[in-house]
């Protein structure tokens, strides 16, 4: 799972959960897959992101020196930051780990890089 996907996943389908975001991420195994830096794409995806979850992901991935805690303005002009965002969001692949619902503590496992967001029949 890439950390960009992490920014979009919620647990709001669980019965009684209101927001279900951001999920608590734990990484037990990750790999870095280099991919081509596409500044326009990173810029286009920026408005869709929740910065607190971006920063949260950076904390778990131990990249806090690259990513500021508060979203700076005019990121589009800051090529260096865009590159770092690209690295954080698209090059770090969580192979094993888990996502935890902030409200109920329900755990969603990540295996072979694929998160399993399925709920059980008594949870929906």
């Amino acid at each position, binding site marked *: 799972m890439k950390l960009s996907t992490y920014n979009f996943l919620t647990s709001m389908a669980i019965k009684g959960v209101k927001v279900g975001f951001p999920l608590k991420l734990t990484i037990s195994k990750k790999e870095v897959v280099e991919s081509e830096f596409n500044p326009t794409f990173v810029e286009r995806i920026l408005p869709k992101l929740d910065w607190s979850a971006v920063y949260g992901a950076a904390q778990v991935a131990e990249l806090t020196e690259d990513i500021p805690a508060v979203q700076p303005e005019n990121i589009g002009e800051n090529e260096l930051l865009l590159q770092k965002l690209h690295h954080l969001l698209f090059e770090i692949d969580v192979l094993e780990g888990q996502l935890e619902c902030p409200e109920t503590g329900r755990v969603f496992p990540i295996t072979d890089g694929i998160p399993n967001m399925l709920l059980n029949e*008594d949870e929906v």
Partner: protein
Amino acid sequence: MTSYRKYILWFAQEHVDFRVQEFDSLVKMFGLQVRRLTEQTLKPFWLVEFRDKEAALKYASRSVLLRAIFELYAHANNLTEFHETLRNHVDTNRHALAGYFRPDTSFKIVVETYNKHFSQREKVAKIESMDYLPIEGTVNLKNPQVEWWYIEFWGLDPTDVPPEPKDILFGRLLASGQRHLIKDLSLKQRKFIGNTSMDAQLSLLMANQAMVREGDLVFDPFVGTGSLLVSAAKWGGYVLGADIDYMMVHARCRPSRITQKVREKDESIRANLKQYGCADRYVDVVVADFSNRLWHPRISFDSIITDPPYGIREATEKVETKNSSKDNSRREDMVHYPSTSHYSLQSLYGDLLEFAARHLRLGGRLVCWLPFHREDYDPKMVPHHQYLNLLANSEQPLTGNTARRLLTYEKCSEYSSPDRSLASATQMSTLPQDFRDRYFNNDLESRKDRRMRKAEQREQGRVEMEARGKIPSNGRSKKCSLNKARFN
């Protein structure tokens, strides 16, 4: 001053119903100015006008239904008029065309006839009939610098070939369409395929309908083996998928190839993208149930391309809802697979349109298939949504009485109903009956009827045979005694 130039489009005579829609989608995607001169869209040769050569090349750079595009020199409905037009064209554009006729420019003339066959000798005679062309270059059949095409169209009906060609066209080859991709992305060579992987041509067509462009974010909520993501990634989209089937997404389900006993370790959707050199375009796949909300409201996709399960080769399922958990004896540490229940096509399409209305960007497109039985097709059965415009709807026949329609929707206004209880914006006159039930149980004749009819036929055959005086051999007892002999 506005000026247009005329071109010949040569289409493959396949998926004809999709031709106009693909053309319109690509024209809209590139923002081209175009005038279509051919009214009968079933014809494999169209005359169109583009603003300039660049526009024509842009169109050819994406079309999968287009074989090739030519710069028109002459078009007529009979031979005399044709030669006159061609002679005039070459004469009036003498200076512009001079470069193609120069002695140091090698050339080739191809004769293409539709719906009538000609021998090589006859084709050469057709080329000779244009001996007034001021060509000075040398012939090079393998690798010519200029390629001219002489095209005759002899109607569409092979049982009713007219005495004279209906259209005669002559033009210079400008570019080929993208049909080579059909072979490049063929499922035969693909690493990871499943029972319902979409073939390369149709998935490329779907990506064209969705107007996938460089840097788009594309989502498939019923991703399966990711066959639709391949084509979207090929056109430069960043792809994301989800599916309820854990074994499928992890490529651990039963293999679909007859020669393959177990899945290989490295099969995956990502491996497919890597195979075609677009691994960079892979974002993620997720195991998730489409009937439950998963995605953050902020996410917006540029397009959603999907082929939902029809319930025939892949099950239509969602996680079952149970209110009591009294029969639940599992412990925390036990692996549990949620039981699934039937997900009717009706509620599936309702959910899909609602999801698209919520999560598409304004102007983004939803492209999906709708299966149905041809005899009860009614344009009213196509689902509608107040925030989505239905732009295209074309049919592909599947079996004798089933078919599917490729639906293209475009989001036309911003979603503004966050209240889930109000979200019945999808209008869908009830699908007559569930596709699966109808497919298996409500055939034109039921299975029992067919069995009885066949038995009756056999009985009649036996009676006739006896009447002819032939002694029936008891095949069954013969086989039984043969088997007995083998074991004794």
